């Protein structure tokens, strides 16, 4: 489990992280979202032992990450600007990575040649951005990490390769229990893969929940009444409502079964629960709390 508590980091007086706290359960795929400058990359660099925090703690399975190779060799990361030696080929980098990850799986490296159609003898600098991203995934997956930390991981990948990469990651999660922490500023991208989500803004984590928790607690109902709209039961907590013609779309906080039962008492002509997108959940969950979530997501 990854635990970050009250993390603070300032750069020349600017607080990039102002008490961020994150908990990533074992085996989870945790999506960290937020606008540009929210502190996502800074947080991930602390998790990979690149930066040292001003205060707060970062532990993986209870052990500090900073200057702790025993922990770091269980973590593979793919930053948004993955580094390789200027003259190096993928094979050269593979040899380099093997020197740091004793569990590096050379057999898997050979097997993945079929997935990533790259020449491992070609200098990496001659590859396109998407190909370099593939190379990074290739090596990271061969490190057989317990923790995979990804910063904007699929930027530059074509849709097919995106799917392929996520498929490999999900396979590792299901087979090896790999814990994945992925940062993105795009909620839609994470919606399909994440089971936990945290949202960051201005150096703090505003909210973190499991996806099921969020979905169980927020309900979107499309409803049509005959004639004038009756007063809704006071027990229902409306987060948002809009109307197109006679069709009203209302977002409620609460359990779907309880909400539907309460609404049924109002005798609607038509009532249907519609799936909420992750984006909508965050907008309506936090909109009422005066957070600038709309600005974050839109």
């Amino acid at each position, binding site marked *: 489990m990854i635990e970050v508590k009250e993390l603070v980091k300032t*750069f020349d007086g600017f607080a990039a992280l102002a008490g961020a706290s994150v908990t990533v359960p074992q085996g989870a795929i945790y999506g960290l979202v937020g606008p540009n400058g929210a502190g996502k990359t800074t947080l991930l*660099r602390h998790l*990979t*032992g*690149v*930066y*040292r925090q001003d205060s707060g703690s970062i532990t993986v399975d209870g*052990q*500090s990450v900073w*200057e*702790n*190779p*025993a922990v*770091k*060799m269980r*973590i593979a*990361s793919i*930053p948004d*600007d*993955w*580094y*390789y*030696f200027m*003259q190096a080929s993928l094979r050269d980098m593979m*040899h*380099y*990575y*093997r*020197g*740091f*990850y004793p569990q590096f799986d050379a057999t898997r490296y050979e097997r993945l040649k079929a997935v990533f159609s790259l020449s491992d003898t070609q200098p990496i600098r001659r590859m396109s951005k998407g190909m370099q991203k593939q190379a990074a995934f290739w090596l990271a997956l061969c490190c057989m990490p317990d923790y995979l930390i990804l910063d904007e991981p699929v930027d530059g990948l074509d849709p097919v390769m995106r799917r392929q990469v996520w498929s490999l990651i999900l396979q590792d999660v299901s087979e090896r229990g790999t814990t994945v922490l992925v940062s993105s500023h795009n909620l839609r991208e994470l919606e399909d893969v994440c089971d936990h989500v945290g949202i960051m803004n201005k150096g703090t984590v505003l909210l973190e929940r499991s996806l099921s928790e969020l979905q169980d607690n927020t309900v979107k109902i499309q409803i049509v009444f005959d004639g004038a709209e009756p007063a809704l039961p006071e027990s229902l907590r409306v987060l948002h409502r809009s109307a197109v013609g006679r069709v009203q779309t209302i977002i409620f906080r609460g359990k779907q079964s309880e909400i539907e039962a309460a609404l049924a008492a109002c005798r609607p002509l038509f009532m249907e629960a519609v799936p909420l997108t992750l984006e909508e959940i965050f907008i309506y969950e936090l909109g009422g709390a005066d957070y600038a979530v709309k600005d974050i997501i839109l």
Partner: protein
Amino acid sequence: MPSRTSFFNRTVFWSDCRRYWPLTAAYTLLWLLVLPLEQLTEYGHSFTEPSAWAMLETMLDVTGIGGGISAFCTGILFAMAVFSYLTNPRAANGLHALSARRETLFCSHYLAGLACQLVPQLVCVLLSAAVLGAHGALDLRILGLAFLALALPTLFFYSFGVFCMLFTGQLLAAPVFYGVLNVIVVAVETMVRAFAGNYLYGWAEPETPTLIAFSPIVKLLETGVRGVTGAYGSSVPSDAQDVAALRLQGLGWLWVYAAAGLVFAVLSLLVCRVRPNENSGTTVAIGWARPVFRYGVAFCAALALGQLVYYLFFGQFRTYGSYSLPGSLACMAAAGMIGYFAAEMLLRKSLRVWRTGWRGALAVTGTLVALGVVLSLDLTGYEGYVPDTDRVESVSVDLSVYSNRSSCLLTSEDPDTIRLVTEAHRAVARDKARQLRLGAGDTPRDWGENGTVGCYFRVTYQLKNGGFVRRWYSDVTLFENELGDGDSPAAAFTALYNDPDVMLMRTLGHRLYSEEIDPRRLADLSFTGGYFNQSLWDGDTYLGEESRGLTPEQAQRIYDAAVRDVEAGRVRESLFTQDSRSVTLQLYANYLDLQDYGNAAAPSYDVDERASVEFDVVLTPNMRETLSALRAMGIEASFSG
């Protein structure tokens, strides 16, 4: 719990060696050309094969001189290569995310860079050994010294380069820091001395900077690391048995710098542990070093640029004593501010630094002004300080009167002479206001008229506590009508000029002083001959030269007669005399050189080797006994010219 610290990662080490092989290859080629290939070419085609001594001495010369220079150049190159990742945020983040401690990465990179230099050196020395062996000049001791001459400066300069790399986050800033820091101590010392010299009356400085050891490349070049034979490194042996006496001059300094290199390596490791990764790409990567950089640049700019600007704009109007305090301070303050803001711009990577930097710039200006005022008002008491005679071990004096025939140069431990020197010193220090006023005139002084003469007076006291006090007064004006006033510079300087020790030195000791031969080292003096030469004149008509060699006995008689003339006071002179008639003859002698191996407080001497010395005897018309001795040899000194 953190894992156990490992200081070496094989992957990092070999990766560095592989990636920077072109640099290593170029370095190897350089030393191959300089050492074994050059030896093969030179010794393989010469008609007469040089002696083993000559071949080995050449090898020590090449490695001694070339080792320091090449280590200075390549040390920073290899440091930049293996630690370049620290200056690239992407690379630093990428490598520090891997499962290795900073200590492991540092030591592996450091050792890789060092190995890339030491291995080629070892290979080249071994190949040289093969070449020398083929010519019968194989000597493992000398080869070991040659390798040390290469390896020790490499250890220092490379470690220092690494140290510079860790302090900066900009790749191109590293060689600038490295170059500047290699000479900055000598440069700053020189500039500070120039700065102080502008304000302090009587300011004197040593001939070589006292802190030269802190500017390693300057020190090594000054030391001259090379192969020498014998205690003084001066004699040239004639056969191979002298190889045993061959040694590497300056080896002690190489060891000192190598030890300093190890210290720098450890310091670099400590810096590496605390170096924030996010500072990659910044000019100064360590937080506490930023103010040092900012104020260091400001003060160096003030000292160098400020004084340069002052001399460019005001220098042509300046005469001795007319130094403009406001002008000088204005130039230095302006240059200091420019330096401060330039440093701030480099640190902040922005031209908009006024708001953040004005306080610091003001502090720099204030400090410079305060420093100038403190010096110009002599709040330190420098100008008036004359050491008490009982604290002085010895004194060296250079008193030259511009209109007179000879100057007074001597080093003496005689209490009477020391007292006379301190009295002369006090007199000229007391006369500061008038001397500066006289010096401030825009027109040249009319020395020689109205009973005045000009002179300069340089004095160095060696104190009993081992310290030195130096003062130098140039263009001092003396007034003949003040000779009756015992406290006047004229009276004090005249008394000093006619001190028995001084008279002896100005009659016989010029060459001793100029060749820095301590008269205390002259023992068992035996004359080997002499030479007399004078121009003959009839009024203004030149008649020709009269020259004559002297036998050892004649030289001895002349020397003894000259000493008696001095002891009888026949070379006493007034500083204001216009009689500049003199004839100089040379006497040659051998002596046992008593090398001083003791300290100043309790000197002890040991006989080292026999050396030769030359006396210039300055004959003046009053030296009756000497002239009489010459006459007995058939030589008539002519003072008509």
